[in-house]
């Protein structure tokens, strides 16, 4: 006595017509008495029939008009890879070049006016003064002088004694 599991394993071959006559008769007899297997076989057959025995799909009455419109409308040719990548890259390069040149131009431009000469003179004056007479030098000198004074004072004291 075969089990339902054994019959179910033969269902695909049975429905595809790949079983021998004896085996087909055997499976068919089981399907008559077993509702579980029969329901499964019927569902498989129904699904496959939707694909294997299709009815006509309703046609679109405006298909020809749609095709005509498509044929009359020229399609835009696809841009090549070079055009798609090089063009934006060239734009970016030109943009950065423009910004760089602008900055360089701003730095290099010097106006020869009276005030610009005066500013340059004052800058150099401050710079020279700071170099010749820095505060630190003054402080160091003052410290050295006080040290020398102290030492002289001590020497004098010793001599007096």
């Amino acid at each position, binding site marked *: 006595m075969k089990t339902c599991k054994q019959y179910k394993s033969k269902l695909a071959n049975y429905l595809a017509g790949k079983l021998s006559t004896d085996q087909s008769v055997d499976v068919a007899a089981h399907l008559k008495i077993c509702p579980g297997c029969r329901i*499964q076989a019927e569902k498989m057959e129904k699904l496959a029939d939707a694909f294997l025995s299709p009815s006509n799909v*309703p046609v679109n009455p405006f298909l020809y008009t749609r095709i005509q419109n498509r044929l009359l409308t020229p399609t835009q040719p696809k841009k090549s890879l070079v055009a798609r990548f090089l063009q934006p890259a060239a734009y970016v390069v030109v943009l950065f070049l423009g910004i760089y040149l602008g900055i360089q131009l701003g730095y290099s431009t010097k106006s020869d006016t009276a005030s610009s000469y005066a500013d340059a003179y004052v800058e150099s004056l401050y710079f020279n003064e700071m170099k010749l007479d820095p505060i630190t030098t003054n402080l160091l000198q003052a410290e050295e002088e006080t040290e020398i004074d102290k030492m002289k004072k001590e020497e004098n004291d010793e001599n007096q004694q």
Partner: protein
Amino acid sequence: MTDNLVTAILRGEQEAFKTLVDTYQQMVLNVCYGFVQDQDDAQDITQEVFIQVYQKLPTFRKDAKLATWIYRIAVNYSLNYIRSKKRRGFLSSIDELFETTHGNEDALQSQSEEADSSLLAAEDEQILKKALEKLPKKQRVALTLSSLQELSYKEVADVMNVSVNQVGVLVTRGKKKLYTYLQKSM
């Protein structure tokens, strides 16, 4: 008749092209539907097939059968469409991950109402589509073409460039695999 039709189209007679579309529209639509299992998609592919037919007609060799030639274009277009849809499906599934559901309550409600009424049919459709997707390409083409009433095994063999015996083998194996996949999906 075919020769005259092709010659007339090549001469630029639009009426002849309309006759060609009217004659082969149903069969192209059935082929495309057999592959994509969606009426709207099948209509779109059919349109593309006829545009291709019109543009490639100067290259058509008159020793071949026009119907076979058109079938072949329809099969190639449908297979390409399935391939590109798989790719798009992957990308759209990524999009869906980031999609928000709020603000679409009306649409969702109407969707759920539709779903209630056609839940079983939609489920069956998905099972069939998944089973078909698993079929090897040649078996799927042979099964789809042989399932159309208009085509004999000889014509299927001509479209596929294989022998009639091979078509028979592909159809039988394809059917067995289809039933097996359907059983596993249920």
